[in-house]
């Protein structure tokens, strides 16, 4: 039996909604079959007011053990480091977070806001938001780079806007069933099992990428979204085309460019004018290359690809 508490700071509940879409295991399975004891959750918890505050105090004091602390949303520091713009159960949420992280066996940051700061931390970051242990690419965040939970691990980061339900449930189950040795983390403390491969891995448009055949506009039945429409699939770490969304699809399969939302820089270019759904180029060459490819290699590759492209690649392929 593992006690789990889930709280939200500067959040939209997107990760909660995503989590509730889970199957194999479903949210109810976690409780009924995997021995996760959900002490409280903002959308699911029964207690309100003083009854909840008592529970929180007991967790902070250690009277009730807190095995897993899941945090969704940013840590809000405004105004002036007080955190008063995000108050919860009678005090700034950031104060609860500091206390609960000290008491927790494991701390799991779910979604971009809790991992890197996400949308709320987009310039000018009005709420002075941070992720738990990162702000964008910068290690440290709210808890500081040396933070480890009682079990000796740093914050386990499950990024994404939102995170996929399977990413959440698999990590929670691993922690609850004593399989943390199987969780290897990358430099951004993301579980490698999900974030070693790329969004492009398994994309149905890979052949078009290979032959440099571009989807030049939305709503087309062919082409790769990388060349014109700003898709970040080749340089984004995620399993979105291996572990499909809602058991059906992924953004790129549906014709939407990947926004790179599992990476610390999301939203890229701070959404500056001209950067949304448009590939950023210098002299016709994409500013951001597929991961690990240099400019020279890219030019050679795409020239060869264009020369080799078969005629079918220019015709509609995802036909009715």
């Amino acid at each position, binding site marked *: 039996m593992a006690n789990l508490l889930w709280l939200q700071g500067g959040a*939209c509940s997107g*990760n909660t909604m995503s989590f509730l879409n889970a199957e194999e295991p479903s949210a109810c399975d976690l409780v009924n079959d995997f021995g996760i004891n959900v002490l409280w959750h903002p959308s699911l918890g029964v207690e309100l007011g003083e009854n909840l505050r008592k529970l929180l105090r007991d967790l902070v004091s250690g009277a009730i053990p807190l095995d897993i602390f899941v945090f969704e949303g940013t840590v809000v520091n405004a105004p002036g480091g007080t955190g008063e*713009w995000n108050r919860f159960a009678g005090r700034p949420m950031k104060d609860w977070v500091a206390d609960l992280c000290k008491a927790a066996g494991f701390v799991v940051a779910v979604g971009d806001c809790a991992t890197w700061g996400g949308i709320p931390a987009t310039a000018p970051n009005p709420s002075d938001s941070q992720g738990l242990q990162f702000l964008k690419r910068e290690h440290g965040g709210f808890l500081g780079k040396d933070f480890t939970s009682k079990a000796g691990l740093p914050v386990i980061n499950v990024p994404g806007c939102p995170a996929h339900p399977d990413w959440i449930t698999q990590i929670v189950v691993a922690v609850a069933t004593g399989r943390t040795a199987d969780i290897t983390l990358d430099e951004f403390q993301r579980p490698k099992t999900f974030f070693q491969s790329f969004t492009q891995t398994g994309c149905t448009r890979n052949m078009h990428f290979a032959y440099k055949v571009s989807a030049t506009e939305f709503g087309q039945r062919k082409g790769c979204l990388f060349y014109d429409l700003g898709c970040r699939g080749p340089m984004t770490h995620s399993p979105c085309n291996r572990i499909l969304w809602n058991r059906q699809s992924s953004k790129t399969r549906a014709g939407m460019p990947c926004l790179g939302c599992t990476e610390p820089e999301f939203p890229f270019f701070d959404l500056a004018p001209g950067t949304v759904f448009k590939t950023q180029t210098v002299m016709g060459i994409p500013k951001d290359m597929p991961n690990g490819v240099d400019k020279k290699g890219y030019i050679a590759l795409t020239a060869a690809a264009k020369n080799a492209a078969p005629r079918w690649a220019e015709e509609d392929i995802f036909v009715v």
Partner: protein
Amino acid sequence: MSAQIQTLDISPVGRVEGDLDVRVEITNGIVTNAWTQAELFRGFEIILRDKDPQAGLVVTPRACGICGASHLTCAAWALDTAWQTEVPRNAILARNLGQIVESLQSQPRYFYGLYAIDLTNKNYRKSKYYEEAVKRFAPFTGTSYELGVTISGKPVEIYALLGGQWPHSSYMVPGGVMCAPTLTDVTRAWSILEYFKKNWLESCWLGCTLERYEQIKSYEDFMAWLDESPAHANSDLGFYWRMGLDIGLHKFGGGVGRYISWGYLPHEDKYQKPTIEGRNAALIMKSGVYDGKIDTHTLMSQEHALENTTHAWYDEGGADVHPFDRTTRATQKNTTDFAGAYSWATAVNHDQYGRLEAGPFARQLVAGGKHGEAWQHYDPFVLDMYKKMGGPSLHLRQIARMHETIKLYRQAEHCLKEFRLNEPWYIKPREKDGRGWGATEAIRGALCHWIEVKDGKIKNYQIVAPTTWNVGPRDSKGIRGPIEEALVGTPIADPSDPVEVGHVARSFDSCLVCTVHAHDGKTGKELARFRIG
């Protein structure tokens, strides 16, 4: 004669999106005054300033994880009106379908996950329905809870077929949609709908076919349906109806008695050249304001909406301001002062009707009006219930909400039927400067975005969400907001566990994160103070 007033600060009220704190004053066991506080400010409107005109398509769905499709719908239509785009028929259908399936998702998830578990509160132990309520509605283990919460993920599988994932796709764009669905997508979507209908909507919620339920047009029809068969009476709808009456949910939680809907689901043949002015005549579900005090319906349009920040944490003066003229200047030191400012939510007013309630209840009362175009959707059921049950209550608010499920289902079928797969899904627009407005009805009510694009970037972006209407604080005249008003008259059986306050707040399906600047917090005063006055 001085009554003893008990002040109760409830922080947080859980199971609303975001965080809600409520202060109530209780006199002789009944709430006599109330204040709702939204206490999280993320400043999305500030983030959007000077960004790419399309930034709203990425940012605003992330204002709210539950109604991201609704925000996306508003963001796309707002740009369409600003850029004067042409939106192909298929794209209107694909946007509507996304909006509809998100709303369908919310129905069982909200009812079981956020609302019905309170029926298992010890407060109701004396009800003859209590044991059955625990069996069905207990969190995680209840028979209906587990089925309802799990199946709630199904409808949004259709969203993923269109947009790749739910939540947080941005597949709706000015000029149409990004996707171009195929036969596979449409067939799967049908099958997912059928699954949802067969395994929950008909079998568990209604206890009858959609066709039988659709015959209900009045209070008497509903009563006849209830008595017609044990399957109806024992369905979750029948059971909830009976238990609600038994524990008195029809006796409180009414609110302001005036209602707003922007209307939604533009007809695929009537809004291909979208304009702000042309929207009302193009909608399947008509807009409107229903004034329950004088029983009148009028159309609603965006120029009537005004925001007031007298009691909110913004340094923008005390006048009513149209969102196009707002500046969103957050107060640095957001100290709670119930006589002054105490919330991040603004007080939204209609320039003629004042404070209005938004939500499915409002939509259904509007649907009962004869205003608007003759072809638009009309449904007298909830309005008839309203009149015959002596006006609004929290019980009727729930019935109205769940009543929509069947209509949403039919509209989803309509979209799938009407897709013409070989016709266009997108017409590339020309970007330009201008003002735009986009609206829809999120499951929890009226949502709209105003955008002003100048010099190729966002000059001003303003959002008024359904919960902004509902959870707003007092306005410049000191008039309570709809939830504050609905709380007045609520009986509190046990001040140490004021579940009734939770019922009322949750009956609005409050979404404080959607108000874009909201989270309830408290000042940490001790919980219950007594003062003799």
